[in-house]
């Protein structure tokens, strides 16, 4: 069949379109009021949670925690504003009685613009009722809407704070959450946060604007010397906040431009990182990859249909996936550079790393078998893990510092990377198992070599998983022995890792012993998803009492249990339904029986297939 020109070059076109998509997302965009240099404001360096980072990151993280988005959407004007504008408005909306900030921003103190921002996400019925609010679309409310009840929230939160965490109700958890968010806003509007003013003199070299401005003025009056860095920063903030309050756009922009130019000259290394992080925030590469993976999952699935386009669609998906994988990889490398740590340091980074690993492994499998199944498995797992990462990022900064015992690059790079890749392989094998069951039951694709190849790929991934999870777990033990003299302590996280190792060992031995064949291995691999998700997440929920299931962790727990039940029922269906009733294995068509593995070699390793 002759292919049309377009058909022939579809893979290249797909890769090109993906590159264009990423390129477009890299352009700075998304602020309705760009003539104010909010982006420059976002480039101001601050010290937050132990790390020097751009104001942009602080603004985004705080807004993310409060409203679950990185930007503010104003439903009334239909405009979208950046987190920087929101934070700036918070900082210039002080209490009029505040002697420092109230005096500096009289207009803001009078109008309190930030109090009008509908950013507080309140979804709990009981809490809405207590605040006298009506449920509405988007579930986001402004302080002005429940201002009268702020005192009630604070008192209630104080009382709840005294009760043990295990006895708190869902309502209690939500009250605490809101009180915490209000407290955050208060810290910024009083300028106690962030630590924005550098100081060359003292051991802990950054101060909040609030104390720094007072210190500088007192020092000047007393004739004491002030560090030039400190003075510059204080002057800049004074100017920026005052001009913003006075609605003086040129003044605001000029003050920022001048200060940033000076910083670029003084500390180019720091500003290099800051600019990279701002770019990284704006680009949001993992979010873009997530979008691509969704599309690829669909394209890959369509490529299974037997059309003239099948092969080219499959190649197109592979081409686009390669581009997304490059972006995914580069983004992880940028994170490593920004944080100065190996790729996995917390749950969030484990999610993006697992997603990366899943896509990578599936690309290798697709390279070998070219049947489009691995592409779909890769994009689905990539999509799922990035969604999980996105949900985890709601908790705030994704590049936190590490407690003393974890602060070692050697063990993070070896043990943590190994064990996370172990999770990755278990997930990939599980999703390949799902593909086996799904394709076998509902399509006639899973015949002959397709089934054998899928099964062989699963087997290969499981072997790699055995190696990685075993070595990873043992390295964890060695780290523990090295850190506190106990190789194995039987604690929940260790046990979780051990469960994965035993489970993969069980699957492999069951196969070597002929107890399971293709179908059995697929079903067992699917159950492996549950075992792995327990190890990854479940153990974190162990210490919670019954009531805490209502909190945000409780919701996550419910999701986990629900998904596990779904996966378990698919596995159950796969194990229970007789093969003759699967669409792919249905008689009368006389096909090679794909459910039978090739004979075992004397060693228990799969013998070379004869076909």
């Amino acid at each position, binding site marked *: 069949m002759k292919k049309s020109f377009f058909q022939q070059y579809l893979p290249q076109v797909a890769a090109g379109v993906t590159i264009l998509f990423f390129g477009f997302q890299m352009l700075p965009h998304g602020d309705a009021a760009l003539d104010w240099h909010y982006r420059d404001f976002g480039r101001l360096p601050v*010290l937050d949670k132990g790390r020097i980072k751009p104001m942009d990151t602080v603004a985004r993280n705080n807004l993310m925690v409060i409203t679950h988005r990185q930007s503010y959407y104003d439903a009334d004007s239909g405009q979208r504003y950046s987190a920087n504008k929101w934070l700036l408005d918070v900082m210039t909306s002080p209490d009029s009685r505040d002697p420092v900030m109230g005096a500096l921003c009289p207009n803001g103190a009078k109008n309190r613009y930030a109090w009008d921002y509908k950013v507080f996400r309140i979804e709990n019925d009981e809490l809405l009722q207590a605040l006298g609010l009506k449920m509405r679309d988007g579930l986001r409310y402004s302080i002005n809407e429940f201002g009268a009840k702020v005192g009630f929230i604070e008192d209630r939160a104080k009382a709840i704070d005294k009760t043990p965490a295990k006895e708190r109700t869902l309502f209690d958890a939500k009250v605490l959450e809101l009180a915490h968010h209000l407290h955050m806003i208060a810290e910024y509007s009083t300028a106690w946060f962030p630590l924005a003013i550098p100081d060359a003199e003292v051991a802990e070299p950054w101060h909040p604007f609030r104390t720094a401005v007072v210190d500088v003025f007192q020092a000047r009056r007393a004739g004491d010397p002030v560090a030039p860095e400190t003075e510059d920063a204080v002057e800049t903030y004074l100017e920026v906040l005052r001009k913003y309050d006075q609605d003086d756009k040129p003044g605001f922009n000029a003050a920022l431009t001048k200060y940033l130019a000076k910083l670029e000259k003084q500390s180019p290394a720091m500003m290099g990182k800051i600019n990279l992080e701002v770019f990284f925030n704006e680009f949001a590469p993992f979010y873009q990859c997530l979008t691509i993976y969704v599309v690829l999952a669909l394209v890959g699935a369509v490529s299974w249909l037997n059309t003239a386009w099948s092969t080219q669609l499959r190649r197109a998906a592979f081409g686009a996936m390669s581009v997304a994988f490059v972006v995914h990889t580069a983004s992880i490398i940028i994170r490593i550079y920004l944080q100065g740590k190996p790729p996995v340091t917390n749950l969030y980074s484990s999610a993006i790393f697992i997603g990366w690993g899943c896509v990578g492994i599936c690309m290798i499998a697709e390279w070998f078998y070219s049947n489009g199944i691995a592409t779909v498995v890769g994009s689905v797992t990539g999509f799922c893990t990035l969604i999980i990462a996105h949900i985890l990022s709601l908790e705030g900064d994704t590049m936190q510092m590490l407690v003393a015992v974890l602060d070692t690059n050697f063990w993070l790079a070896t043990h943590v990377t190994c064990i996370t890749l172990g999770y990755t392989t278990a997930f990939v094998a599980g999703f390949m198992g799902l593909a086996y069951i799904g394709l076998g039951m509902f399509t006639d694709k899973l015949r002959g070599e397709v089934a054998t190849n899928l099964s062989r790929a699963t087997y290969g991934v499981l072997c790699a998983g055995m190696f990685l999870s075993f070595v990873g777990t043992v390295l964890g033990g060695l780290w523990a022995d090295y850190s506190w003299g106990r190789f194995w302590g039987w604690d929940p996280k260790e*046990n979780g890792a051990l469960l994965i190792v035993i489970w993969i060992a069980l699957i492999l031995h069951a196969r070597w012993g002929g107890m399971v064949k293709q179908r059995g291995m697929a079903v067992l691999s699917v159950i492996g998803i549950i075992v792995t998700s327990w190890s990854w997440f479940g153990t974190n929920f162990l*210490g919670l009492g019954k009531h805490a299931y209502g909190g945000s962790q409780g919701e996550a727990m419910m999701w986990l249990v629900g998904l596990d039940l779904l996966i378990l029922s698919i596995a159950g269906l796969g194990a229970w339904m007789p093969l003759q009733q699967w669409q792919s294995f249905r008689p009368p068509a006389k096909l090679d029986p794909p459910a039978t593995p090739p004979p075992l070699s*004397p060693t228990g*390793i799969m013998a070379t297939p004869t076909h």
Partner: protein
Amino acid sequence: MDQTAIKAGMTPIGANGTASPAKEPAVMPKSELKILAVKVLRALASLRITVTLFAMSMLLVFWGTLAQADTGIWTVVGTYFRGFLVWVPLKVILFNCVDNTALRIPFPGGLSIGAVMLVNLLAAHAVRFKLAWNRAGIILIHAGIIVMMLGELITHLYAVEGRMMIMTGHAANKVFNPRYSELAIVLPVDAKNDQVVVVPGALLQVGAKIHDERLPFDIEVLDYMVNSTIIDVKDKNPANKGIAVVMNEKAIALPETAGADTEQKEDVPAAYLRLWRGDKVLGTWLFSVFYSEVFYDYIQEVPVDGKNYQVSLRFKQTRRPYYVHLDKVTQKFYPGTDMAKDFRSYVRVQDPAVNQERKLEIYMNAPMYYGGETFYQAGVTTDRPGRAGNAIGTTLQVVRNPGWILPYASCAIVGFGLLIHFGYTLYRFLERRTVR
């Protein structure tokens, strides 16, 4: 279905796998006994047993994890993982979804499963042993796993863990183990020597009466609490002698600190003891680790026949023949946070036997090795909580484990074995592809 495949699966013990069973008589030894032995060995080597053991060990590990929601980690380790038989409560079996802990089913513990696994593994290698490239990896992997299991067994049997607390400017030689308690009866003889009798906490069972020639009095155990706290007495004080009467306090039992608790605290044992001198009751005392170690560092005195015995319930302790002197302890935080970045103890070991001092820094991931023991930085005592506090003392974790090398050896052996085995599998896979 392919019959040969099934057969191969059903008789995995066959040293020659797909070889048909009909051939067996030809190679069988003459003696009946030998035939039986081989049969038994082959049955023991079954991969079905292996898979069953894997499944059982997973259940055990999973339940042993869930049990930690309510029970202390060391209790769980003792019963689930280092016991022969464990009675698992219904609550744990049903994933903590119900509250019933009264109903329990027996399940083989870690020692039983481990032992059968070992037998299964050894039998499998005995039947299938063959020196070949594709076997080398498998043999190494399993040898390494045996080493690891032995390592855990040796740790269980011989490893000793303890804590050493030193305040800045002081030296200590006492190592205590918060997992065990003991009742110490001390009679100071002169300025340098004490006469000490120790009753292990395990003997302090409620209702027990302890009589021993070495004790100045008999002990009747009225109450023993694994974990407790001290509260003010509102009604009647169960004690009628000692500090509890002076302070008007009593001990109430608390549940054992659960393994999964986010805030890991140590259990504080307490005991109400009635002391007898012959037929005469000396009184009822409250002895608690709370008084002796946690809070007051207060030792109660019991006068018997004109001698004052210092009696205390304390964490089990031993003394080293050398002292560890703490010059300084520091803690660093990440700037702008309450998160500790580094704890560091500057110590000197003063050992009269070697007549020299060793100066060392101990910090996270950098322990000190001395006298066959390893000293790890475990914590810092501060005068105030958070970053406002000054570090005034240090806590070192002191570990002696004769089997410490085994996990390292095992890791190397198994890792190497896995590399060989899966590397070989991968090699054959790639080779097959190029042939095609």
